[in-house]
C-alpha cells in the first residue's frame, strides 16, 4: 500500500520523513474515494502464454487482448485449459512461458477470483467473511462499513451475523461475491462460480453478476461450461480447444438481455456446434 501511495505523489512533496504520514493518510482517503466513485477495469494483454503440468501441455500459446471493462466468457470442454488460463491470470499458478500484463502495476486487491465453491470460513460470521476480502485494508477503521456495503450490494445485509453453514448454496455464493467485490477489484475472474447452483438460483445470480459488473465496471473473465450463460452475460466468448483459442465470438446483443431470445439462441447454437465439432475430431 505504501509503495502505491508513494508513487502516486510527486517526489518533491517529501521534504522530510516527519510529514510523510499525514500526507499518506490524506492521499489514501482520496484514492479510496476516487475508486469508490468510479472503479475502472484494467486492460489485459496475454502474449504467447504456455503452461504444462508434467508432460501434459495444457496451454499451447495463448495470445489475447481484453480491453478494460470488457466481460469475457471462456468456454471449452473439460480439460481444455480454461480454468488453467484463469488461474494464471489471477496469479494462482506460475507461468511457464509468455506474459500477462495489465498495462500498469497492480495491487493484489485489484484482482479477485471467485471459485465454484464459496470457500467461506465456516468459523467466521458472514460479515467477517466479507471483511477477509479487504486484504491488507482489513486493519483499517472502515473495514466494517465497507464489508456491510458489499453485503448490501449482494442483497444479504440481513445475514451479516449468521454462520455460513445456515446459508443456502446461492446465498453462500453471494457472500463469496461480496467478499470478492469488497476491495473494489479492477479485474474479477470467475471460475464456474454458478456451476453448483440450481437453475433458478443460477439465473438470479447471473443477473446479480451482470448488475455489479455494470455498476462497478471491472474487467470480468468468466470461465463456464454453460454456453447459454456465456452468451447471456459476456461481450465476447472465447472458445478454447487443445490449449489454444479456437474461436473468438463477439456478442453484440444489447443489455439487459432477453434470456432465450432468438439472437442469443442462434449464437449459443453456433458456439455449441464449434465445441461439438471439436469433440467429433477426437
Amino acid at each position, binding site marked *: 500500500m505504501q509503495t502505491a501511495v508513494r508513487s502516486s505523489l510527486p517526489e518533491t512533496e517529501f521534504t522530510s520523513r516527519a510529514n510523510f504520514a499525514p500526507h499518506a493518510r490524506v492521499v489514501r482517503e482520496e484514492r479510496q474515494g476516487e475508486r469508490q466513485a468510479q472503479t475502472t477495469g484494467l486492460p489485459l494483454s496475454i502474449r504467447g502464454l504456455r503452461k504444462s503440468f508434467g508432460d501434459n501441455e495444457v496451454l499451447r500459446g495463448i495470445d489475447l487482448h481484453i480491453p478494460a471493462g470488457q466481460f469475457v466468457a471462456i468456454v471449452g470442454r473439460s480439460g481444455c485449459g480454461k480454468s488453467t488460463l484463469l488461474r494464471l491470470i489471477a496469479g494462482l499458478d506460475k507461468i511457464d512461458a509468455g506474459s500477462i500484463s495489465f498495462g500498469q502495476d497492480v495491487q*493484489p*486487491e485489484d484482482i479477485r477470483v471467485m*471459485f465454484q465453491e464459496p*470457500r467461506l470460513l465456516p*468459523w*467466521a460470521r458472514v460479515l467477517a467473511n466479507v471483511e477477509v476480502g479487504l486484504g*491488507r485494508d482489513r486493519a483499517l477503521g472502515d473495514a466494517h462499513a465497507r464489508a456491510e456495503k458489499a453485503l448490501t450490494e449482494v442483497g444479504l445485509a440481513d445475514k451479516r451475523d449468521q454462520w455460513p453453514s445456515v446459508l443456502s448454496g446461492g446465498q453462500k455464493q453471494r457472500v463469496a461475491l461480496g*467478499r470478492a467485490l469488497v476491495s473494489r477489484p479492477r479485474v474479477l475472474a470467475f471460475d464456474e462460480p454458478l456451476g453448483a447452483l440450481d437453475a433458478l438460483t443460477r439465473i438470479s445470480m447471473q443477473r446479480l453478476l451482470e448488475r455489479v459488473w455494470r455498476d462497478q465496471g471491472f474487467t470480468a473473465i468468466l470461465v463456464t461450461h454453460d454456453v447459454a450463460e456465456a452468451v447471456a452475460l459476456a461481450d465476447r466468448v472465447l472458445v478454447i480447444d487443445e490449449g489454444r483459442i479456437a474461436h473468438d465470438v463477439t456478442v453484440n446483443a444489447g443489455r439487459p438481455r432477453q434470456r432465450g431470445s432468438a439472437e442469443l439462441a442462434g449464437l449459443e447454437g453456433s458456439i455449441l456446434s464449434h465445441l461439438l465439432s471439436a469433440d467429433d475430431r477426437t
Partner: protein
Amino acid sequence: MSLIDSVSLPRSFRLPRVDGLIQWIVPLAIIAIWQVASVTGFVPTRVLPAPSDVLLAGWKLLLSGELVRNIWVSFWRASIGFLIGGSIGFAFGLANGLSQLSAKLTDTTLQMVRNVPHLALIPLVILWFGIDESAKLFLVALGVFFPIYLNTLHGIRTVDPQLIEMGRIYGMSDGELFRRVIFPGALPSIFVGIRFALGIMWLTLIVAETIAASSGLGYMAMQAREFMLIDVVVLSILIYALLGKLADSASRVLERLTLSWHPAYWKR
C-alpha cells in the same frame, strides 16, 4: 413401543430440567438395584458393600479431611501432568503439521515411542524418580502427549486446502493464515484429542498411584485394601467415575463455546 412414545411426546411435556436429568436415570437405577441387592443379602457385603455403607465411609473420610486431601492431590497431579504433556503434544502437533522438515525430523521417533505402552515404563520411572511427584507427572504427561499430538497433527493436515488457498489469495500473512484459517480448522480434531487424553490421564494416574505413591486416591484405595476396607475401595472407584465425568463435561462445555460455528455442536 415405549421408545417411540417417548420420542413423540409433545414438546411442552419435556421440561428443560428433565432433559438434563435424564442422563442420570441409569446410574441412579443401578445404585438403587445395588442397594436392594445388598440389603436383602443377595450380594454379600464382603464382595460388594451396600451403597449406603460406601456413602458412610465417604462421610467419615470427609470428616477426617483425608478424602478432600487425597482428591486434591490426585486432581493436582492430573491437571499438571495434563498441562505439561498436552502443551508439548500440542507444540509438536503444530510444528509437524506446519513444517515438513520438523515432521521428517521427529515424526518417526514419536511414532516409535507411541507404540511403547507408557505404563510399561513404570518400573523404569520408579528407578528414575522414586515414588516422588515427578514420577506420576511424568507418566501422566507421557500418556496425554500422544492423543493430543496425533489429533493436533491430523487436524492441521486436514484443513481444507481450498480455504488455505483462499487465505493466500486474500493476502493473509502466515500468522494470520494460522490464526484465522488453520487453527480454527484444526480445532474440532484437537478437541477429540483432548477428550481421549482426559481418559488416559485418569487411567495413568490411577495405575501410577496404585503402584507407587504415598498419597492420592489410588494410594487411598491400596491402603484400604491392606486393611480390608472394601467400602473405601469401592468409594475410590466411584470417585474416579465422577471425576472422569467431570473432566468430560468440562471439555464439552469448552467445545460448545469454541465450536459454536459448527452445526454438530448446535443444540437440537
